[in-house]
């Protein structure tokens, strides 16, 4: 029963983890804006989040107690790690030193990702507050 309460938080937790990974990725791109030959990377956030949360059990899912029960998905968390699914940014303008960092786009993505990270933080805070008021019952 107690994990029912935290299950709702798991999805947001995964999203937060991926947001911070993406933030680091964009920070790396900005850091390497002047490095010759550096290729900018980014991730397909929706796809990565789906891959990371597919393994999560749905809230209120049935437990398979018999071998002939239809399973409701493995409960193993993938931990939100990213790696091979990283994509390469398409250069908007060619550069003599083969660097593909587009500073305008990176700055925009960085601000966008920071706001969405904060939004995820608020969702988690709201979830926690709801659970707390349900527990105290006041």
């Amino acid at each position, binding site marked *: 029963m107690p994990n029912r309460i935290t299950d709702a938080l798991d999805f947001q937790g995964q999203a*937060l*983890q991926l947001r*911070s*990974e993406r*933030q*680091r*990725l964009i*920070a*790396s*791109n*900005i*850091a*390497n*804006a*002047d*490095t*010759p030959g*550096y290729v900018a*990377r980014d991730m397909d956030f929706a796809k990565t989040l789906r891959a990371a949360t597919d393994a999560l059990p749905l809230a209120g899912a049935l437990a398979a107690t018999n071998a002939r029960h239809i399973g409701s998905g493995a409960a193993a968390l993938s931990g939100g790690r*990213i*790696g091979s699914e*990283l994509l390469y940014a398409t250069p908007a303008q060619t550069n003599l030193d083969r660097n593909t960092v587009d*500073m305008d786009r990176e*700055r925009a993505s*960085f*601000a966008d990702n*920071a706001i969405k*990270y*904060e939004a995820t*933080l608020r969702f*988690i*805070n709201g979830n*926690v*507050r709801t659970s707390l008021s349900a527990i105290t019952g006041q």
Partner: protein
Amino acid sequence: MSMLSIFNVSGSAASAQSQRLNVVASNLANADTVAGPDGHAYKARQVTFQTELMGQTANDPTAAGVRVSTVSEDQTPGRRVHDPKHPSADADGYVTYSNVNAVEEMVNMISASRSYQNNLEVMNTAKTLLLKTIQLGQG
């Protein structure tokens, strides 16, 4: 806490950019120096950046810092001016100045300082987000 390594990444970039700024400063300072008795004038220097992976695992591309790999000297011959009265003039009356191009250095300086600012702003944003993460669940 994967966001903590943003400080390593952006910090390495800021350090590399400040080294670039240092080299630009010494180039500009020596823009008008002349060749000494050995006949060699100051040669303009330039830094070359290289990506340095900083993730916990060996080939993690998500944390890519920067470091200065080499500082190279510009080998083009320096400016030669005919001025027989100059104390450093050679036997033919020519003075050899350094090969620093002041305009190029100014452009380099602006680019370095902009990149430095960019990295500082990235660090500030990461700091704000991390501070809010610390307060997670407190209401």
